[in-house]
């Protein structure tokens, strides 16, 4: 009853100016609470560090500084410098070290300040982490998680804004995850840390501060989400919107807007980019017969390209229209706010694409 009352109160603008009181009342709500994506990731790391003493975190500023984006806040104080390691500035170095320690039996969570900087370590991720199990004929495994913010933030321009989902998702031996909300963040990170294969975990800086409702099940210390399963966020019958990470939120907004015009979109949150959940996509296309993919990354060989190829290969007869892709513009990210907005998909772009595919 209390949460419902709270929702009503917030809707009517009551209690908005009394945040402390709201927070206090919220604290007493037992079945539903809100959690930011940041706290979701932090709690997941905390629980996995407690659960398995082979797990450790390393990266730049993860310890004393509490994390460049505060994802690792409090962990150094709780687990000590053996489990939360601040590293010198060398992505190639600390990634290689993390990979080597994983070969030797530890379970590192290797943080990149952003995935852009991981390009300085990409050989270690691909030639060492991804391929070694195969090259060693199954003898040497690499149970590592590489994580950090991916894609565009705001006003950080070309070398801080690239989306790497497409590149990593083409590599056999890697699993690639991209959470959207707090439930995704908790469940997928915990699953990633427990997984014996190397996992690329693509977060999003803008999403860190966003809060989402989480229930007791999500907060359970053994809550995990299955890797390789997408989630249908919203059902619909006219068109399927497929996306991951921050763009899921944009798709939901577009779906809201379109529903007022009588167009009902099914919104699929991929959650896992590799291996792609073809079954969920095929089930959806059989229902709607039209699909629009949405991603921040560049168009050529993007995630949408793979999905479009799969749909026309596997469900050609189900398609009433070509699969349309909404992507970022094919330019290095500009800095000026107006140019940046023009270079990234907006809700309007998604709406336009849906209308185009509906004819």
């Amino acid at each position: 009853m209390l949460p419902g009352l709270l929702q009503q109160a917030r809707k009517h603008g009551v209690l908005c100016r009394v945040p402390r009181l709201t927070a206090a009342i919220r604290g007493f709500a037992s079945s539903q609470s809100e959690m930011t994506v940041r706290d979701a990731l932090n709690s997941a790391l905390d629980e996995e560090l407690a659960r398995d003493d082979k797990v450790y975190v390393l990266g730049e500023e993860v310890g004393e500084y509490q994390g460049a984006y505060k994802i690792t806040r409090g962990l150094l104080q709780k687990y000590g410098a053996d489990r939360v390691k601040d590293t010198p500035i060398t992505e190639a170095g600390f990634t290689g070290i993390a990979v080597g320690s994983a070969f030797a039996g530890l379970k590192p969570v290797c943080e990149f300040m952003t995935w852009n900087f991981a390009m300085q370590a990409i050989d270690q991720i691909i030639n060492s982490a991804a391929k070694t199990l195969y090259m060693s004929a199954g003898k040497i495994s690499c149970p590592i998680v590489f994580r950090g913010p991916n894609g565009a933030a705001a006003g950080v321009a070309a070398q801080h804004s690239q989306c790497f989902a497409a590149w990593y998702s083409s590599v056999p031996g890697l699993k690639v995850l991209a959470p959207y909300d707090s439930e995704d963040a908790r469940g997928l990170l915990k699953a990633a840390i427990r997984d014996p294969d190397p996992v690329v975990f693509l977060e999003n800086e803008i999403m860190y501060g966003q809060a989402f409702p989480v229930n007791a099940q999500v907060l359970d210390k053994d809550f995990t989400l299955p890797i390789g399963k997408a989630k249908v966020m919203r059902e619909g019958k006219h068109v399927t919107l497929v996306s991951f990470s921050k763009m899921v939120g944009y798709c939901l907004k577009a779906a809201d807007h379109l529903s007022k015009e009588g167009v009902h979109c099914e919104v699929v949150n991929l959650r896992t980019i590799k291996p792609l959940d073809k079954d969920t996509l095929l089930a959806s296309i059989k229902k709607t017969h039209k699909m629009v993919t949405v991603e921040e990354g560049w168009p050529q060989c993007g995630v949408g390209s793979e999905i479009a190829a799969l749909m026309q290969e596997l469900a050609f007869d189900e398609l009433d229209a070509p699969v349309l892709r909404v992507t970022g513009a094919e330019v290095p990210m500009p800095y000026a706010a107006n140019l940046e907005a023009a270079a990234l998909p907006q809700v309007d772009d998604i709406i336009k694409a849906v209308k185009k595919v509906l004819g």
Partner: protein
Amino acid sequence: MRSRGSSAMLAHVVKTIGAFGQVKDTSSATALAFSISCDRIDTSIRFYPCSIGPELWGMSLRRHLHFCSSQGQAAVSVGSPSSSTTDNFLEVPGGRLPYTSQLQFVGGSETPAPTIPCYRTIDSTGQDVPDAHVPYPISQELSLRMYTCMARLQTMDTMFYEAQRQGRFSFYLTCQGEEATNIGSAAGLDNKDMVFAQYREQGVLLWRGYTLEQFANQLLGNAKEPGKGRQMPIHYGSPELAYQTISSPLATQMPHAVGAAYAYKMDRISQVSVVYFGDGASSEGDAHAAFNFAAVLGAPVIFICRNNGYAISTPAHEQYKGDGIAGRGPTYGIPTLRVDGGDVRAVYNAVVAARARALGMPYNSGGVTSAPGTGGGGLGGGSETSLGPGPVLLECMSYRSGHHSTSDDSTRYRTSEEMRAWRARDPVARFRTWLVRRGWWDEAQEAALRRTTRVQVLEALDAAAQVPKPNLSTLFTDVYDTMPPHLEAQRAQALEFVRRNPSVCPSDVPIE
């Protein structure tokens, strides 16, 4: 107990804050914020960098202050812009630096750092060097074991090289000229110490028990090959023998070795990791990161640089301008030894000592502690030593007598005189001379050993050639720990296609 410099600094700070007042808007400048706690003042102060000396800019002030306040001192004892002239040291977050009033460059061609000398105990003619320090003498049994392994390695290399030339497999590279580095180092390690090799350390595998059959199987990529035919030749690996699978990109194995050593330290296992790399590979960024990190982490890793003078066609004097790789070690804070890589006894002694040092145990004390194979003691324990575990760097100087690989013809970039001169200093011949002088070896034994080895290598190659290739259905395994549905589907499709069109599949590749 406050130093005089720091109380002057503190006074300066307080005065500055008084002048600036309470700082609210920091968006126009980056501010350093820290807490000062001492016996009288306990204040949070926000501070503009322009009012601190340039030596503070960009440094991790936070850590230094944390250290100082935990020592019960005034936290601000950093570089003193308004210092008196009686302070003798510059205290910075990196440590304590003495001053000099002389403008004098160190290093570079005009004022080079002293060249690190090369440790050897047997000279190039196979004679004992008088008064050589040999803390770990080699018994007749160990000497013969090392020699026979070096000779077998040399014969095996020659024959496999010839086999590639005859087209039996696609690629080979020899370690000719480096047999002493390979075998001397392998003999000095514990068999459980994890080896991260580059690609010219097949002698280490041979020492640990990899058989000629296993070598031949790997080169031919057949079904008996533990690597399931996935890797190109010479990319051996053997978890049973604690030898990581060879990976082609250079120097990436260096941070791996540091990470593995860190894992042993965390797990409190008395084990080291050992990483081999060449003079060329040491130019990679990964090498720098590995050295630096190993020292910072105190990781029990032995870095063994095989400086054989060439990186394919690039001679060492074009690879670096400093004092080789050994010259770099001390500047990273790593205990370093340069060794004559053609003297197997020197290499052996260096590695045994290095291993003890890496584990933080006493070394160099005449073989009393940590002989190889005993597994050593605890990590960094023992009352006689205050050393913790940490890295050690050995640079083994030798000469790459052979070509870089079967894809190379080194006569294009080096003279035959140079090659001839080094062949005359062949480490195998040198050690043989030493053994013969002692009466531990003779011509008859030599001839028999070489003959037997040749026969064994040929037999291994012939046997390996009879074994079929790995079957097609293994193509898709081990990509992931558990085969995911999309690969299962691809595998099923591929096998189905091959069953319907058997002529597509080569005759020596079984389907399943």
